């Protein structure tokens, strides 16, 4: 009876008070705080989609540090259009589902001006559609070919790091001329590995070589010796691009398999990013070659720009944290965050960016960019930006493993990295 009575009078004093309390509590939730339109002195908010947890955590940690370093330098120099830059970082768990949610959060909750910083391709592909729908410029630092392939949308750009297709094809001339023309490729059996397989196979054929065996390793594999037995005897070069926690086992078993008589070996440093090259078991790599986007070790011809960049980010001449020599950076990739932030700065200044209403103008301003000179804004080197494909192109480095360090032996031209356009985003509507 009591419950019936209370049900028949839903608007009694207690229920009203409870309701008001509930509304009060709900209004304390994020998103219920009314947003004031940014004035000219308000900070420029950059939503930083960072891989703090999940498979990309090692990369994410250094992307975070590089981003903070670049923002500090930018702010110390007066910010962007006289406004300070504020980074709103949110972990996406290296998960595409969460990545899309984080982009939504930047656009609709934090009212960020742009979203930035995503590395892993599957997170970019999961997030980019939402960025396009929310009409928020999405500056990725991913290396993936997804942007230039035309898969994404006008709001997604990659102006601060080169893509895998350009990197891989630029390796072929050096490999064919210096290491050999009969190549066996060992790669992980998923999209990243398949990109290497397809782009390098085509590129080495243009150099008069060919891939004589393509050995795909399942992503769940933990032992590799049985795959080495498939390497043809007439292999002149092994091209490897393994990633994940089994990389050290891969190298160790490869060393045990070949012993002192091995073919030439070329790999992508992606395998050993954030890994100390003095780790026992890696001695086998002595004399082998690696692609590096940015040289982990300071080179004999170190420039002032490189010194400045390393000091700002907090890495020493071995590419490790100045506060902990065992905390090795992801030097070959993280510079992309630095350069992307400077492209954003240049784009906002060119567009006279004042707030979210100018987002389309910002995209157009970046699309209009062409050359970028080497300097503090672009410590990795000069660049060529293709506004149609939203992709930047730059020099690539090939380094030799010598005495536990990587010594640059070749630096490609930008022309080596170019390929025909596959999309023209400028023809797409906003």
């Amino acid at each position, binding site marked *: 009876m009591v419950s019936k009575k209370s049900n028949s009078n839903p608007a009694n004093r207690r229920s009203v008070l409870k309701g008001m309390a509930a509304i009060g509590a709900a209004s304390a939730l994020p998103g219920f705080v009314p947003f004031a339109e940014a004035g000219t002195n308000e900070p420029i908010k950059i939503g930083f989609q960072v891989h703090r947890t999940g498979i990309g955590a090692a990369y994410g940690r250094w992307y975070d540090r590089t981003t903070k370093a670049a923002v500090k330098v930018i702010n110390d120099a007066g910010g962007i259009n006289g406004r300070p830059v504020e980074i709103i970082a949110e972990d996406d768990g290296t998960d595409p*589902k*969460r990545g899309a949610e984080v982009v939504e959060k930047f656009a609709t909750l934090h009212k960020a001006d742009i979203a930035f910083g995503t590395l892993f391709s599957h997170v970019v*592909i*999961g997030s980019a559609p939402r960025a396009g729908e929310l009409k928020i410029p999405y500056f990725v630092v991913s290396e993936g070919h997804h942007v230039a392939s035309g898969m994404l949308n006008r709001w997604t750009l990659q102006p601060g790091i080169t893509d895998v297709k350009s990197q891989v094809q630029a390796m072929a001339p050096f490999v064919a001329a210096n290491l050999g023309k009969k190549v066996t490729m060992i790669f992980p059996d998923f999209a990243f590995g398949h990109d290497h397989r397809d782009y390098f196979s085509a590129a080495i054929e243009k150099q008069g070589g060919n891939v004589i065996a393509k050995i795909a390793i399942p992503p769940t594999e933990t032992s590799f010796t049985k795959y080495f037995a498939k390497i043809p005897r007439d292999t002149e070069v092994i091209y490897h691009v393994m990633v994940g926690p089994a990389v050290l086992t891969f190298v160790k078993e490869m060393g045990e398999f070949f012993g002192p008589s091995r073919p030439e070996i070329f790999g992508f440093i992606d395998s050993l990013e954030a890994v100390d090259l003095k780790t026992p078991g890696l001695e086998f790599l002595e004399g082998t070659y690696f692609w590096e986007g940015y040289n982990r070790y300071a080179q004999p011809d170190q420039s002032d720009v490189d010194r400045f960049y390393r000091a700002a980010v907090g890495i020493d001449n071995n590419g490790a944290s100045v506060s902990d020599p065992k905390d090795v950076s992801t030097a070959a990739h993280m510079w992309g965050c630095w350069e992307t932030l400077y492209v954003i700065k240049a784009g906002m200044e060119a567009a006279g960016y004042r707030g979210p209403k100018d987002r389309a103008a910002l995209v157009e301003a970046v699309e209009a960019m062409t050359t970028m000179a080497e300097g503090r804004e672009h410590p990795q080197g000069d660049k060529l930006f293709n506004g149609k494909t939203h992709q930047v192109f730059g020099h690539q480095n090939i380094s030799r493993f010598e005495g536990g360090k990587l010594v640059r032996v070749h630096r490609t031209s930008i022309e080596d990295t170019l390929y025909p356009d596959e999309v023209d985003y400028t023809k797409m509507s906003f």
Partner: protein
Amino acid sequence: MSRALTFHIGAIIVLAALQFILPVYHSGNLARIMVLAVYAMGYNVMFGYAGLLSLGHAMFFAVGMYGAGLSVRLFDMAAAPAFGTGIIASILFSLGVGLLALRTIGVAFMIVTLMFSQAIYLLILYFNPLTRGDEGFVIPRAVRQVAGFDLSDPTTRYFAALLLFAICLLGMVWLVRSRTGRVLIAIRENEERARMLGYDTWAHKLFAVVLSGTMSGAAGAAYGLLFGSIGASFAEVPFSILPLLYVLLGGPGTVIGPFVGTVFMFYLRDISSSFTDAHMLVAGVALVLLTMYARRGIMGVVRERWAKWLP
């Protein structure tokens, strides 16, 4: 109209109203939550009502998602028929899984579902030229149109998610009060006794697997079409654990529980991740506390203490 039906229709009306009240961030979240809640409701059919603990439910979600997504990618299908293809794929796949997996019970059933799910994940990677493997692919906005409605529009997306959610929610209310639903509960409580009473428990369990897989697949297809991306991470093991958490938190064997659990988990992560990187630790602690002090889940406790009529 019964209290149970009134309550659930009321919940749908409240959700419809929230689209006009909530800030855009939260209404966007709620659209996503409703789709994920359909996934959790599907899980609840097997776990909460039939007592079948699956550790590989992501396979159903992924089959629906890729059934719809690949229809668009490979055959240029429009959104509505692609959604239908996703559902048909889910029905056939869950029927196949049911016929094989139900030959086992208990721990073996859990392992078999886990293995099937892993096989689906690896198949997605294996057929990389078709699926783009771990990277996945995008469903263009131009395709995401149904009868003139743009599914990428926030309002349209919200009501499309609500429509799917409402159909599944009311369908579940009907099911659990039907003879079939009661047999499923009987199987959960004591399968031997249910069989002794003359019920074909195997056929009922197969029905539960097919219904559960189809609902989860529908959620997967809807997710791909509403949010525009398809990816292998939706077939990974952690995505199989999510509906288990949603259901455990919300209340296994309650119709509204999976939705409540999904809301709870979503916002627990969303809010905690703003303060700490250890957001999964926060979720873990919450789960431990709920398991210790509210073993029947949130809505299970509500039903036990205040609303015994709740289905």
